[in-house]
């Protein structure tokens, strides 16, 4: 392409891209108050088309335009994701098993157990309607949650299972110990997991054992995560402190304000099963930021200083008598970038 026609293309493309983006954004914003699944479907086709046009034009755009368009595109896609998620939380979990192929020795469709919880709160939304053989802990707020809060917990063999944690607001999730307030006779075995999927957590502390597989996390805001795993990938999250034991390079993408620290010795010391699976030599400091593929250090993450004060893990792990909010208020502010 000649220089002149290239310039003309760049100008045209930019104008077209901005116009389409503005139109789609307006439609999406309107969906926040007045949801219409058809509109969302149509709009997502438009978003995909816009993404494709951007990808196709990538080579021809000026670096500055390209970066701007990329950022705007990512913002648009995450807006769409948000709206979809709030419009239709159920279908995301609603895949049912069909009978035409034997599901390889899986216990199909267990009935969710009523949740044995001091507060007598109801079970989670998804589990009421979806027979599932994977563990899901979802849709809670202001709650202290343990493995007993997972409706399918008692039903499945503990080996090779998948845990999904989604849609929590102001919660403490403790999958490492049994609460001292819980009158339950015996400690349940620590969940042996091979995969972890986490999505949409706000102001939440997650304390998990080591997973013999990967952890994939999306959309976390103001959280503390304790976990061990083979791989760690975190997307679109802000202000999260991660206490991690890992044997590969952790990666982040579209994230900011992320701090990494080692898996707390105080938690690993609670049970042999917790210490056993930790990485011999954790590489939690070798973070790669896929949104910052450059020689310069990424501004999106840091390491917690070695001499920084550890939170009082016992206070976090024990079921708080006065509810979780006080504990959260004590520990979460450490990771919050101060709000004016």
């Amino acid at each position, binding site marked *: 392409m000649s220089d002149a026609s290239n310039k003309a293309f760049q100008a045209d493309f930019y104008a077209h891209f901005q116009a389409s983006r503005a139109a789609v954004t307006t439609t999406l914003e309107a969906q926040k108050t007045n949801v219409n699944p058809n509109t969302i479907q149509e709009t997502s086709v438009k978003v995909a088309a816009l993404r494709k046009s951007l990808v196709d034009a990538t080579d021809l755009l000026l670096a500055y335009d390209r970066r701007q368009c990329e950022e705007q595109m990512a913002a648009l896609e995450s807006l769409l994701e948000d709206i979809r998620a709030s419009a239709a939380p159920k279908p995301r979990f609603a895949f049912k098993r069909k009978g035409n*192929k034997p599901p390889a020795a*899986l216990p199909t469709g267990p009935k969710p157990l009523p949740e044995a919880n001091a507060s007598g709160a109801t079970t989670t939304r998804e589990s009421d309607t979806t027979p599932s053989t994977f563990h899901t802990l979802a849709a809670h707020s202001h709650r202290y949650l343990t493995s007993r809060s997972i409706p399918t917990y008692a039903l499945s063999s503990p080996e090779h299972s998948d845990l999904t944690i989604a849609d929590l607001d102001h919660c403490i999730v403790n999958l490492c110990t049994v609460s001292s307030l819980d009158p339950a006779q015996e400690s349940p075995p620590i969940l042996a997991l091979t995969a972890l999927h986490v999505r949409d957590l706000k102001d939440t502390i997650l304390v998990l054992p080591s997973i013999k597989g990967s952890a994939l996390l999306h959309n976390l805001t103001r959280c503390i995560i304790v976990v061990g795993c083979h791989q760690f990938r975190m997307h679109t999250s802000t202000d999260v402190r991660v206490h991690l034991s890992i044997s590969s390079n952790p990666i982040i993408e579209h994230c900011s304000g992320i701090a990494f620290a080692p898996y707390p010795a105080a938690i690993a010391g609670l049970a042999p099963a917790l210490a056993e699976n930790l990485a011999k030599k954790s590489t939690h400091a070798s973070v790669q930021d896929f949104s910052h593929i450059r020689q310069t250090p990424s501004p999106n993450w840091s390491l917690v200083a070695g001499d920084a004060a550890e939170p009082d893990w016992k206070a976090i792990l024990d079921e708080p008598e006065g509810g979780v909010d006080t504990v959260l208020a004590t520990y979460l502010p450490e990771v919050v970038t101060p709000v004016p």
Partner: protein
Amino acid sequence: MGLLTIIRKNRQKEKEMRVLFLGLDNAGKTTILKKLNDEDITSISPTLGFNIKTFVHGRYTLNVWDVGGQRTLRPYWRNYFEQTDALVWVVDSGDRMRMRDCKEELHSLLLEDRLAGASLLVFANKQDILGSMTDSEIEQALDLPSIKSHEWTIISCSAVTGKNLIEGLDWVVNSVASRLYYSTITSSVPTNSETERGVPVTPDHGGAP
């Protein structure tokens, strides 16, 4: 160079296939390739950029490109489309929350002119994990039956146990061979492989090595 060598060279070249491994991040693309190659699969880091592996499979040489699937890397997939004989789309069968994303990425790839004619194998990976979606559930979730533009199949597999990995490659090779070479081949274990690595060609990086 003797005549025989030239002929052999040409024949070798003619039996090469270019296979592109794509899919969302965390699907298990790199693990599958390492497992096929008998390498250690416990300390794989997420792929920043791409890996190339060469397998001798039966009478064919497969040049396999494994490209990172993170959202920021997906725009660069297009740099790898040229002359692709087969696309292997790897799915994390337990990742219910991203099936829609997975479906959309796949269908938008299939619109790509440079992938027209490529055979499509969908690997429903991680079947060893309790609670994974079955291949027929994934077939529905990804709306595979609507694909008319490509010869496709779905095979459930596990990169950890190795189940069905060779069978998947067999399908790829047979499908491509019947299109390009009009000959059939039989199954065999891959041998003789090498790996290269690279980083994506990004404007910020100033070009790949």
